[in-house]
């Protein structure tokens, strides 16, 4: 057994930064919120570069392998994490809270999530995914929360822990029956042997566990509560970053070791996707909290993604990933804009507090408008590119019912967004807004510039993603 230690460089950098943060916390007296941000920034940047360099190097065959597609997912995880960390620094600076806990858990979470993507052993994958998910409990309880957050975090932990127990049982059973945990062993066993219902059930638990972590209906109940109640940095991190990891894990498991289980569960996934689309769209209409509206939008987006994945092929994975990416970019944009919505130091989230936003902060309101319109798939914005891929894919399979469901979902979701736009643009200003940090404007401009570049020349986005995902389905 030969070990290639270079392949572990990204994880090594994350651990090093984590240890460094702990030392700074212990030994440096004047550690400001910016100190931990600076450390984490360099750690994530180093991990990102190392991922790019060692994208196809494996640490340990059949246990921990980097591939083109796992590196692609990791790259997006690091990029979005870096954006979230940059914006979070503004929050901690303005509130003057210690950022050590937040950045340390983010680094730990990134370590678990990105490592899970390289793991090709179901034991390692599940342990890392579960650990990454359970860590969110500590993130949700970051300083600055209100009373509403504690019951939410408790419920979150309770259900997450229950799932972890289920997953642990399922994985132990699979490993015992198969006689090993590597993806290849499981896939081979499922091909050769008659599969018992117990094995089917265990595979289903693992796949459904991924859906639970993604927050797809009917496992969506924690999503809106957590994203709506957590402090802004935690909300924005949980909104975007883990989605890529759980999506990637779900796809890797579905096309690899649990392909047989996936085939059996296809109708259920199809039903879940339709439920998610409608729960996401209808739920957004019933909310008055902007972050909860966006949380429901995420359920809607993931419903569409799962709809495509329910007929798992090379093209459907590619289309779903493009759609996920453009939607997460827009959702990330909305959350980035939320950092500018402050009144007397308090971050605003209720719609009635945000009326007349366009009058005081025209740029922020315009950016929000662009992101929301993009989420609805309006041309010529980036969301339209995602829509083209989705509908083109569904038309190719003559799945007209799904197209109808998506269109209906968009119309319902549009009603919620129109309400938000009305609040920002048509309503009279009720409260004053604090001056927003320049960094927030910079980040919004950057996201808008990325959207503009991809709209004008989608090849920069599409070609590389297509190439990276090519080897995923054999």
């Amino acid at each position, binding site marked *: 057994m030969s070990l290639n230690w270079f392949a572990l460089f990204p994880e090594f950098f994350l651990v090093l930064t984590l240890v460094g943060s702990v030392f700074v916390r212990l030994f440096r007296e004047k550690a400001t919120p910016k100190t931990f941000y600076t450390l984490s920034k360099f750690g994530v940047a180093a991990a990102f570069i190392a991922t790019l360099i060692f994208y196809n190097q494996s640490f340990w065959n059949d246990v921990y392998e980097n591939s083109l597609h796992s590196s692609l997912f990791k790259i997006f995880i690091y990029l979005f994490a870096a954006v979230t960390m940059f914006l979070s620094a503004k929050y901690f600076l303005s509130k003057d809270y210690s950022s050590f806990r937040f950045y340390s858990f983010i680094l730990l979470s990134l370590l678990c999530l990105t490592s899970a993507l390289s793991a090709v052993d179901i034991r390692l994958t599940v342990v890392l995914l579960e650990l990454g998910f359970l860590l969110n409990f500590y993130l949700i309880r970051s300083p600055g929360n209100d009373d509403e957050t504690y019951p939410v975090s408790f419920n979150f932990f309770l259900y997450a822990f229950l799932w972890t127990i289920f997953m642990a049982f399922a994985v132990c059973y699979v490993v015992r029956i198969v006689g090993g945990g590597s993806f290849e062993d499981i896939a081979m066993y499922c091909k050769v042997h008659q599969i018992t219902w117990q094995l089917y059930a265990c595979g289903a638990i693992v796949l459904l566990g991924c859906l639970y972590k993604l927050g797809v209906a009917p496992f969506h109940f924690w999503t809106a509560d957590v994203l709506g109640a957590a402090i802004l940095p935690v909300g924005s991190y949980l909104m975007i970053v883990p989605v890529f990891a759980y999506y990637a894990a779900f796809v890797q498991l579905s096309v690899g070791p649990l392909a047989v289980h996936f085939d059996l569960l296809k109708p259920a996934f199809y039903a879940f996707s339709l439920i998610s689309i409608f729960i996401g769209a209808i739920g957004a209409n019933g909310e008055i909290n902007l972050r909860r509206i966006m949380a429901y939008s995420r359920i809607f987006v993931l419903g569409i993604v799962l709809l495509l994945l329910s007929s798992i092929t090379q093209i459907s994975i590619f289309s779903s990933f493009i759609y996920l990416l453009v939607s997460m970019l827009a959702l990330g944009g909305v959350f980035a804009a939320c950092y500018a919505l402050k009144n007397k130091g308090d971050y605003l989230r209720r719609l009635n507090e945000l009326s007349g936003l366009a009058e005081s902060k025209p740029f922020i309101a315009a950016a929000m408008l662009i992101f929301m319109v993009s989420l609805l798939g309006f041309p010529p914005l980036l969301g339209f590119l995602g829509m083209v891929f989705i509908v083109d894919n569904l*038309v190719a399979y003559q799945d007209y019912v799904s197209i109808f469901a998506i269109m209906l979902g968009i119309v319902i979701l549009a009603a919620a967004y129109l309400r938000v736009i009305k609040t920002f643009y048509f309503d009279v200003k009720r409260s004053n807004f604090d001056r927003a940090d320049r960094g927030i404007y910079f980040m919004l401009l950057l996201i808008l510039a990325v959207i503009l570049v991809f709209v004008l020349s989608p090849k920069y986005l599409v070609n590389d993603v*297509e190439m990276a995902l090519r080897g995923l389905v054999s």
Partner: protein
Amino acid sequence: MPNIPFILVFILLPLCGIFFALCSQDNEKTKGRNVLSVAFLTVLVNIAFIIFAFLSVSSEYGKMQLQESYLWLKNPKIVLSFGVDSFSLLLMLGIHLALLIGIWGVRKDYLFQKSRMIFTLLFLSLVNGFLSALDIISFFIFFEAMLIPLFMLIGMFGEIKRQAGLFRFMIYNLCGVLLLFSAVMILYNHNHGALMLNQISDIKMGQVKEIVIWSAIFLAFLSRIPIWPFHSWVSVVSSGIKNPLVFIVANLMPLSGIYSFIRFWPQSMPNTIIFVVTALEIISVISMLFIALIGLINKDIQYKIFSFMTVYYIFFLLGSFLPTDQVLLNVGFSLFAFMIIFSTLEVLVSFQEEERTEKNLSAEGILCKMPRASAIFTFMVFAGLGLPLSAMFVNNFVLVSGLLVYNFNTAMVALAALIFVASAMVQELFMRRTKVEFSIDNEPTDISKLDACFMWLIAAVLLMSLSDPLWFMRG
């Protein structure tokens, strides 16, 4: 002739205007003048480019020229193709002139002028893209994208009392757009790639598929025209708008529906969808008559103008469904004059209504004390009725005679509706010109000399287009 990418210029120039508008100072001191100048100049320069483009195209209908293509996506392959013929250029010119009149009408209303001009220029850019789209994807992109500036303009500046109506209007339009998107993607997939608008009728599909797709397209285009049974959602919004520029923009939307029917709907229709056309004719004439009668009994001038416009739009729609391409250019000529007429009328009405509100006057006899406005208003109303003052005169005759030849009953009902709206407009004109005494300190003020000059210039354009707006192309 220099090799100018005209279409790209038509689309990008308003976007450049937006950039300059964003950069220009808009505060208490400038009172929106900078932004207004940028918008006005942008529209003027685009008009100059359109006239310049006319020199490079032949005057026949349907011969697409100045074609440009841009590869947007490799897989699935999407090539955005653009091109124009004299018909689409004429509509572009008409829309530019209408918006120019609208911008002139709001030049003194400096509150939030920047946002207003930005959304107007965005709308203009998207309309230009829509009118020059040659393939179904680019056509759809601009067809849908137009909704956003429209919604923002109506919501922010329309001063609509019932905002729920605006949401229903938007959702209703969105439903139409999504139906079109589904149909476009099915057509695109069926053809395994780019599909030009003029090739759609050649596509052969199964009977059920054909019916579903054409019905979706039909409903999508219909959603832009205030036609029964959805007319009330559109009319609540369109007739409730107080700002002249926003009113003009909102009432240009039905034009997108008519233009879509003209470009998309095949002249040689598959047998499976013939019934759709019959259905359209029936609901069109019902809507025309219904809206014309409401316009006649309604006392609100905004509604009268709205009903006047809607009846004419449906009339042009019926004209475009005649089984011959010959009259389509006539539809274009009439539409060109029509857009200019209703825009000028709306600006004049808005001026009068402002005077009325400010000085608490009744509408009766208001024009007696406004000789300049009265003369132009009278000219425009008569031109709108189809008297020999604009291109509507000859071309409406051609359309009516075409309808009489192909469908006598439809033509008779359409004529009745036209007479009703004409009566409504004449009734309003005479009411406003009836001699009434006003107290000396409360007399309405006339429009300025500059306003009058501008509007007479517009009237001159109308007069020049009397027989054929493309006279300058024929030497």
